[in-house]
């Protein structure tokens, strides 16, 4: 377990900032405690200082997880956000997409969101912008990348993909073994 290097922090912040923008500083600088990012086995964990001190007493090969896993660094040092970060991304999301009840299940199975399943989308979402996907009852379902800007979403045909799937809460069941 170790803190992130400058390079790794930068890569991770760039990724997270795609979804929450400058609200990221609310994650770093919290009024209710000191939270920090630590790297363990290529995965980044967001953990409070208290828990970190306790976790330091466990040997590295026996430690499975601590705090919240935000994502992991791949072998080529790219950062991949996992669905376990949703609880921290959803409240600060800048661009949101609401999905109709019919298309919810499709998204939760890992499919992309089509125009026919799109309920609402925040105004002036640009193309390839990171978005958080909600159900019509305002429950965060996961996150993705906007395939079309809000403008283009209006003009495109109903079978076109509007949001690329990145992570959804169905992964808690489907990828139970790999999520830590």
């Amino acid at each position, binding site marked *: *377990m*170790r*803190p992130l*290097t*400058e390079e790794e*922090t*930068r890569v991770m*912040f*760039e990724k997270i*900032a795609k979804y929450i923008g*400058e609200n*990221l*500083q609310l994650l*770093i*600088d919290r009024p209710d405690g*000191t939270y*920090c990012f*630590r790297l363990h086995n290529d995965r980044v964990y967001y953990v409070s*200082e208290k828990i*970190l*001190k306790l976790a*330091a007493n466990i040997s590295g090969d026996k430690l499975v997880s601590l705090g919240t896993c935000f994502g992991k660094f791949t072998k080529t040092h790219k950062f991949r956000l996992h669905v376990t970060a949703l609880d921290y991304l959803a409240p600060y999301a800048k661009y949101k997409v609401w999905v109709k009840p019919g298309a919810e299940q499709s998204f939760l199975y890992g499919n992309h969101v089509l125009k026919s399943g799109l309920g609402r989308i925040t105004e*002036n979402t*640009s*193309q390839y912008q990171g978005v958080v996907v909600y159900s019509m009852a305002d429950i965060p379902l996961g996150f993705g990348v906007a395939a079309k*800007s*809000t*403008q283009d979403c209006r003009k495109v045909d109903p079978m076109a993909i509007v949001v690329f799937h990145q992570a959804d809460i169905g992964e808690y069941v489907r990828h139970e073994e790999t999520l830590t």
Partner: protein
Amino acid sequence: MEGQSVEELLAKAEQDEAEKLRLITVHKELELEFDLGNLLASDRNPPTGLRRGGPTPEAELKALARDNTQLLINQLWQLPTERVEEAVVAQLPEPITRLPREKPVPRPRPLTRWQQFARLKGIRPKKKTNLVWDEVSGQWRRRWGYQRARDDTKEWLIEVPGNADPLEDQFAKRTQAKKERVAKNELNRLRNLARAHKMQLPSSAGLHPTGHQSKEELGRALQVAKVSTASVGRFQERLPKEKAPRGSGKKRKFQPLFGDFAAEKKSQLEMLRVMNSKKPQLDVTRATNKQMREEDQEEAAKRRKMGQKGKRKGGRQGPGGKRKGGPPSQGGKSKGGLGGKMNSGPPGLGSKRKGGQRQGGKKRK
């Protein structure tokens, strides 16, 4: 009056004495246990005043600490003293309480090669005498080491054996053999040590060319030869198709796990600030989208108006009017629209920008 004052003085003096005594005498139900070697005093009196609960009774704790310290110091003053460089020093007795280990128990070391062999064969160490009788010098000498009993390197006469070369230096041969034995012993000692600490010795596998080297050995020998220059291999050229060696860099050093959290936070916030400042303030795609949206809205409004006019005037002229009016109006309007929008573009977008600041240099062409 004087009598009164004298009495008063006496009373006052008595009071002061009593006060002083009270300061240094402490009454305890149970005597304290002292371990003066460790400067330790153990108080076994039940802490009745402290167990009331609620907020910590600061005054009582302070009083208790003062009393116990007073008793400890009283005991210290009773120790025998000596003078060391103009300071009166008390001689502490031996400590009674045994302190626990500071470091963990050392783990058992792996056996050396000889120990393994001896264990296997069941060889036990024979008890040997320390001194051996040396005939040559006529005295008891030690078995090995400095001025040992039978030192074959110190012989003054060596017979040349029958099968040896007559021109060979026998004395040099003996010292050479001794050196080789010492070196071999040292090597084995280091190997045992490396095995105990699970480290790898730098091997000299490929460094003695025999003509039957494997590819890996040759590669290793090549690497070692490259680095064995005065600049530690920095200015050695590589062959045209030779690849750079893997893992020849320094081991990375990371920040400690519990570094300064405040400093970490500050550096991360700084990085965020730099990241945000580097993003372009005028987002070209957003500008084009806004432009497109406004154009669409205008076109829709125009078409609606044309449609209404056409309906009012009549069927034939309507479409014609629409057709005629369509392209030129579109062209004219869009050009004019663009031209018109050009001036108002950046300020309009500026209001939508994050910081609300104007970037003079980033005007759209």
